[in-house]
Protein backbone atom coordinates (compact mmCIF):
# COMPACT_ATOMS: atom_id res chain seq x y z
CA UNK A 1 0.00 0.00 0.00
CA UNK A 2 1.71 3.12 -1.25
CA UNK A 3 0.72 6.33 0.48
CA UNK A 4 2.32 8.44 -2.21
CA UNK A 5 0.28 6.56 -4.81
CA UNK A 6 -2.89 7.44 -2.92
CA UNK A 7 -1.98 11.13 -2.76
CA UNK A 8 -1.24 11.00 -6.48
CA UNK A 9 -4.63 9.43 -7.14
CA UNK A 10 -6.33 12.28 -5.28
CA UNK A 11 -4.36 14.89 -7.20
CA UNK A 12 -5.10 13.11 -10.49
CA UNK A 13 -8.80 13.23 -9.74
CA UNK A 14 -8.63 17.02 -9.45
CA UNK A 15 -5.94 17.78 -12.03
CA UNK A 16 -6.87 15.55 -14.93
CA UNK A 17 -10.26 17.13 -15.57
CA UNK A 18 -8.81 17.87 -18.96
CA UNK A 19 -11.90 19.32 -20.60
CA UNK A 20 -11.18 22.49 -18.60
CA UNK A 21 -7.80 22.57 -20.32
CA UNK A 22 -9.55 22.30 -23.69
CA UNK A 23 -11.64 25.36 -22.82
CA UNK A 24 -8.49 27.17 -21.68
CA UNK A 25 -6.80 26.33 -24.96
CA UNK A 26 -9.77 27.61 -26.95
CA UNK A 27 -9.65 30.83 -24.92
CA UNK A 28 -5.96 31.27 -25.76
CA UNK A 29 -6.68 30.75 -29.46
CA UNK A 30 -9.62 33.14 -29.27
CA UNK A 31 -7.30 35.73 -27.70
CA UNK A 32 -4.78 35.22 -30.51
CA UNK A 33 -7.51 35.64 -33.13
CA UNK A 34 -8.80 38.70 -31.30
CA UNK A 35 -5.33 40.25 -31.24
CA UNK A 36 -5.04 39.64 -34.97
CA UNK A 37 -8.55 41.09 -35.52
CA UNK A 38 -9.35 38.00 -37.57
CA UNK A 39 -12.76 37.89 -39.26
CA UNK A 40 -15.65 38.81 -36.96
CA UNK A 41 -13.18 39.17 -34.10
CA UNK A 42 -12.23 42.53 -35.46
CA UNK A 43 -15.27 43.62 -33.45
CA UNK A 44 -14.40 43.70 -29.79
CA UNK A 45 -17.88 42.57 -28.71
CA UNK A 46 -17.52 39.32 -30.67
CA UNK A 47 -14.44 38.53 -28.61
CA UNK A 48 -16.30 39.30 -25.40
CA UNK A 49 -19.20 37.03 -26.43
CA UNK A 50 -16.69 34.31 -27.27
CA UNK A 51 -15.10 34.59 -23.83
CA UNK A 52 -18.51 34.47 -22.14
CA UNK A 53 -19.55 31.39 -24.14
CA UNK A 54 -16.33 29.55 -23.38
CA UNK A 55 -16.39 30.57 -19.72
CA UNK A 56 -19.99 29.39 -19.60
CA UNK A 57 -18.88 25.93 -20.71
CA UNK A 58 -17.00 25.46 -17.45
CA UNK A 59 -20.19 24.91 -15.46
CA UNK A 60 -21.53 21.99 -17.51
CA UNK A 61 -18.01 20.54 -17.57
CA UNK A 62 -17.82 20.81 -13.77
CA UNK A 63 -21.23 19.13 -13.51
CA UNK A 64 -20.18 16.39 -15.90
CA UNK A 65 -17.07 15.58 -13.90
CA UNK A 66 -18.82 15.73 -10.55
CA UNK A 67 -21.63 13.46 -11.71
CA UNK A 68 -19.55 10.88 -13.57
CA UNK A 69 -16.29 10.64 -11.70
CA UNK A 70 -15.29 10.12 -8.14
CA UNK A 71 -14.36 13.11 -6.01
CA UNK A 72 -11.88 13.78 -3.24
CA UNK A 73 -10.62 17.00 -1.71
CA UNK A 74 -6.83 17.18 -1.60
CA UNK A 75 -5.27 17.47 1.85
CA UNK A 76 -4.30 20.85 3.29
CA UNK A 77 -0.62 19.94 2.88
CA UNK A 78 -1.12 19.34 -0.81
CA UNK A 79 -3.07 22.56 -1.29
CA UNK A 80 -0.40 24.58 0.52
CA UNK A 81 2.30 23.09 -1.70
CA UNK A 82 0.34 24.07 -4.80
CA UNK A 83 -0.29 27.57 -3.43
CA UNK A 84 3.44 28.06 -2.82
CA UNK A 85 4.19 27.13 -6.41
CA UNK A 86 1.53 29.47 -7.74
CA UNK A 87 2.51 32.39 -5.51
CA UNK A 88 6.29 32.05 -5.70
CA UNK A 89 7.43 30.12 -8.72
CA UNK A 90 5.02 31.43 -11.31
CA UNK A 91 5.77 35.13 -10.73
CA UNK A 92 9.47 34.20 -10.94
CA UNK A 93 8.84 32.57 -14.29
CA UNK A 94 7.02 35.64 -15.56
CA UNK A 95 9.80 37.93 -14.34
CA UNK A 96 12.31 35.64 -15.97
CA UNK A 97 10.55 35.82 -19.30
CA UNK A 98 10.47 39.62 -19.09
CA UNK A 99 14.19 39.57 -18.41
CA UNK A 100 14.71 37.48 -21.53
CA UNK A 101 12.81 39.74 -23.86
CA UNK A 102 10.91 42.89 -23.13
CA UNK A 103 11.16 46.63 -23.58
CA UNK A 104 12.50 47.03 -20.06
CA UNK A 105 15.97 48.51 -19.79
CA UNK A 106 17.18 45.49 -17.81
CA UNK A 107 15.95 43.01 -20.44
CA UNK A 108 18.37 40.86 -22.43
CA UNK A 109 16.13 41.52 -25.42
CA UNK A 110 16.67 38.09 -26.96
CA UNK A 111 14.77 36.99 -30.07
CA UNK A 112 12.73 34.40 -28.16
CA UNK A 113 9.00 33.86 -27.76
CA UNK A 114 8.43 34.74 -24.12
CA UNK A 115 4.70 33.91 -24.30
CA UNK A 116 5.46 30.32 -25.27
CA UNK A 117 8.30 30.03 -22.75
CA UNK A 118 6.29 31.54 -19.89
CA UNK A 119 3.15 29.52 -20.47
CA UNK A 120 5.10 26.31 -21.02
CA UNK A 121 7.05 26.74 -17.78
CA UNK A 122 3.95 27.78 -15.82
CA UNK A 123 2.15 24.62 -16.86
CA UNK A 124 5.15 22.39 -16.21
CA UNK A 125 5.58 23.87 -12.73
CA UNK A 126 1.93 23.82 -11.72
CA UNK A 127 1.22 20.33 -13.06
CA UNK A 128 4.46 19.06 -11.58
CA UNK A 129 3.56 20.48 -8.17
CA UNK A 130 -0.06 19.35 -8.29
CA UNK A 131 0.19 15.82 -9.56
CA UNK A 132 3.59 15.15 -11.07
CA UNK A 133 4.35 15.37 -14.75
CA UNK A 134 3.31 12.64 -17.12
CA UNK A 135 5.17 11.93 -20.35
CA UNK A 136 2.70 13.85 -22.49
CA UNK A 137 3.06 16.97 -20.27
CA UNK A 138 6.83 16.88 -20.65
CA UNK A 139 6.58 16.44 -24.42
CA UNK A 140 3.85 19.03 -25.00
CA UNK A 141 4.82 21.79 -22.57
CA UNK A 142 8.52 21.06 -22.71
CA UNK A 143 8.22 21.28 -26.48
CA UNK A 144 6.43 24.61 -26.10
CA UNK A 145 9.30 25.96 -23.98
CA UNK A 146 11.91 24.71 -26.45
CA UNK A 147 10.06 26.18 -29.42
CA UNK A 148 9.79 29.49 -27.61
CA UNK A 149 13.47 29.46 -26.71
CA UNK A 150 14.63 29.09 -30.31
CA UNK A 151 16.37 32.35 -31.28
CA UNK A 152 14.21 32.80 -34.37
CA UNK A 153 11.36 34.96 -33.15
CA UNK A 154 10.77 38.49 -34.17
CA UNK A 155 10.26 40.97 -31.39
CA UNK A 156 6.84 42.46 -31.01
CA UNK A 157 3.17 41.47 -30.98
CA UNK A 158 3.20 38.84 -33.77
CA UNK A 159 5.40 36.38 -31.93
CA UNK A 160 3.28 36.86 -28.81
CA UNK A 161 0.21 35.90 -30.79
CA UNK A 162 1.94 32.88 -32.24
CA UNK A 163 2.87 31.95 -28.69
CA UNK A 164 -0.81 32.10 -27.74
CA UNK A 165 -1.70 29.85 -30.69
CA UNK A 166 0.96 27.34 -29.71
CA UNK A 167 -0.07 27.44 -26.05
CA UNK A 168 -3.72 27.03 -27.00
CA UNK A 169 -3.02 23.96 -29.10
CA UNK A 170 -0.80 22.57 -26.34
CA UNK A 171 -3.54 23.03 -23.75
CA UNK A 172 -6.17 21.37 -25.96
CA UNK A 173 -4.02 18.33 -26.73
CA UNK A 174 -2.83 18.01 -23.14
CA UNK A 175 -6.38 18.47 -21.86
CA UNK A 176 -7.71 15.66 -24.05
CA UNK A 177 -4.93 13.33 -22.94
CA UNK A 178 -5.51 14.26 -19.30
CA UNK A 179 -9.21 13.54 -19.69
CA UNK A 180 -8.37 10.15 -21.18
CA UNK A 181 -6.18 9.39 -18.16
CA UNK A 182 -8.99 10.40 -15.83
CA UNK A 183 -11.48 8.16 -17.61
CA UNK A 184 -9.08 5.23 -17.33
CA UNK A 185 -8.37 5.87 -13.65
CA UNK A 186 -11.75 6.95 -12.35
CA UNK A 187 -14.18 6.10 -15.12
CA UNK A 188 -17.16 3.76 -14.70
CA UNK A 189 -16.13 0.94 -12.42
CA UNK A 190 -16.02 -2.65 -13.68
CA UNK A 191 -17.01 -3.68 -10.17
CA UNK A 192 -17.49 -7.34 -11.01
CA UNK A 193 -13.77 -7.47 -11.72
CA UNK A 194 -12.96 -6.54 -8.12
CA UNK A 195 -12.94 -9.40 -5.64
CA UNK A 196 -14.91 -8.88 -2.44
CA UNK A 197 -11.82 -9.35 -0.28
CA UNK A 198 -9.44 -7.35 -2.38
CA UNK A 199 -8.12 -4.25 -0.76
CA UNK A 200 -5.49 -3.10 -3.17
CA UNK A 201 -4.47 0.46 -3.58
Amino acid sequence: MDRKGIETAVAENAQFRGLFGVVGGLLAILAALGNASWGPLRHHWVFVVGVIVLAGLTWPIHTFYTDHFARATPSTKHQVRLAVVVLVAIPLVILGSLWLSSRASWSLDLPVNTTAITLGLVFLLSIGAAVGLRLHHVVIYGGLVILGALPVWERGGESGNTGLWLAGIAMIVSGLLDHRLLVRRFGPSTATGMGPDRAGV
Partner: protein
Amino acid sequence: MPESDDGFLLDRLIHEPGRLAILTVLSSVADADFVFLQRTTGLTKGNLSSHLTKLEDAGLVTVEKRFVRKRPNTNVALTKDGAERVARHWAQLERLRAMSQPDPS
Protein backbone atom coordinates in the same frame (compact mmCIF):
# COMPACT_ATOMS: atom_id res chain seq x y z
CA MET B 1 5.65 -16.57 30.99
CA PRO B 2 7.31 -13.80 29.05
CA GLU B 3 5.94 -10.32 29.56
CA SER B 4 3.70 -9.17 26.76
CA ASP B 5 5.35 -6.70 24.44
CA ASP B 6 3.02 -3.88 23.40
CA GLY B 7 5.27 -3.41 20.39
CA PHE B 8 3.53 -6.41 18.81
CA LEU B 9 0.00 -5.22 19.42
CA LEU B 10 -1.90 -4.05 16.38
CA ASP B 11 -5.23 -2.26 16.35
CA ARG B 12 -7.57 -5.02 15.20
CA LEU B 13 -10.23 -2.61 14.02
CA ILE B 14 -7.76 -0.81 11.77
CA HIS B 15 -5.62 -3.77 10.75
CA GLU B 16 -8.31 -5.46 8.66
CA PRO B 17 -7.03 -4.98 5.07
CA GLY B 18 -10.15 -3.28 3.75
CA ARG B 19 -10.40 -0.87 6.66
CA LEU B 20 -6.68 -0.16 6.60
CA ALA B 21 -6.96 0.71 2.90
CA ILE B 22 -9.93 3.00 3.56
CA LEU B 23 -8.22 4.80 6.43
CA THR B 24 -4.98 5.16 4.48
CA VAL B 25 -6.84 6.75 1.58
CA LEU B 26 -8.71 9.08 3.93
CA SER B 27 -5.50 10.07 5.72
CA SER B 28 -4.20 11.44 2.40
CA VAL B 29 -7.21 13.61 1.65
CA ALA B 30 -9.41 16.18 3.38
CA ASP B 31 -12.46 14.11 2.44
CA ALA B 32 -13.61 11.77 -0.32
CA ASP B 33 -16.85 10.46 -1.68
CA PHE B 34 -17.94 6.85 -1.63
CA VAL B 35 -17.11 6.26 -5.29
CA PHE B 36 -13.56 7.58 -4.87
CA LEU B 37 -12.99 5.25 -1.93
CA GLN B 38 -14.36 2.35 -3.91
CA ARG B 39 -12.15 3.06 -6.93
CA THR B 40 -8.95 3.52 -4.94
CA THR B 41 -9.42 0.63 -2.51
CA GLY B 42 -10.90 -1.86 -4.98
CA LEU B 43 -13.60 -2.92 -2.51
CA THR B 44 -17.10 -3.77 -3.63
CA LYS B 45 -19.91 -1.40 -2.69
CA GLY B 46 -21.28 -3.76 -0.04
CA ASN B 47 -17.89 -4.37 1.51
CA LEU B 48 -17.00 -0.70 1.58
CA SER B 49 -20.36 0.19 3.08
CA SER B 50 -19.97 -2.41 5.80
CA HIS B 51 -16.46 -1.23 6.71
CA LEU B 52 -17.53 2.40 6.77
CA THR B 53 -20.33 1.55 9.19
CA LYS B 54 -17.86 -0.14 11.56
CA LEU B 55 -15.43 2.77 11.30
CA GLU B 56 -18.16 5.32 11.88
CA ASP B 57 -19.47 3.42 14.90
CA ALA B 58 -15.93 3.43 16.33
CA GLY B 59 -15.66 7.18 15.78
CA LEU B 60 -12.81 6.97 13.29
CA VAL B 61 -14.68 8.51 10.33
CA THR B 62 -17.63 10.76 9.73
CA VAL B 63 -20.06 9.81 6.98
CA GLU B 64 -22.24 12.51 5.54
CA LYS B 65 -25.07 11.52 3.24
CA ARG B 66 -26.50 14.28 1.14
CA PHE B 67 -28.00 15.04 -2.22
CA VAL B 68 -25.97 16.77 -4.88
CA ARG B 69 -28.18 17.95 -7.73
CA LYS B 70 -30.83 15.43 -6.73
CA ARG B 71 -28.36 12.53 -6.69
CA PRO B 72 -27.37 10.80 -3.46
CA ASN B 73 -23.78 11.46 -2.47
CA THR B 74 -21.88 10.01 0.48
CA ASN B 75 -18.93 12.00 1.73
CA VAL B 76 -16.43 10.50 4.16
CA ALA B 77 -13.74 12.15 6.26
CA LEU B 78 -11.35 10.99 8.95
CA THR B 79 -11.97 12.21 12.51
CA LYS B 80 -9.11 13.49 14.64
CA ASP B 81 -9.16 10.24 16.58
CA GLY B 82 -9.15 8.29 13.32
CA ALA B 83 -6.16 10.23 12.01
CA GLU B 84 -4.19 9.62 15.20
CA ARG B 85 -5.03 5.94 15.36
CA VAL B 86 -4.16 5.19 11.73
CA ALA B 87 -0.89 7.15 12.04
CA ARG B 88 -0.08 5.17 15.18
CA HIS B 89 -0.95 1.95 13.39
CA TRP B 90 1.37 2.68 10.48
CA ALA B 91 4.12 3.62 12.93
CA GLN B 92 3.53 0.30 14.67
CA LEU B 93 3.80 -1.57 11.37
CA GLU B 94 7.03 0.27 10.61
CA ARG B 95 8.41 -0.73 14.01
CA LEU B 96 7.53 -4.35 13.37
CA ARG B 97 9.13 -4.20 9.96
CA ALA B 98 12.31 -2.71 11.45
CA MET B 99 12.37 -5.47 14.06
CA SER B 100 12.20 -8.09 11.35
CA GLN B 101 15.25 -6.73 9.52
CA PRO B 102 18.46 -8.68 10.13
CA ASP B 103 21.04 -6.94 12.29
CA PRO B 104 23.65 -5.49 9.85
CA SER B 105 26.44 -6.32 12.27
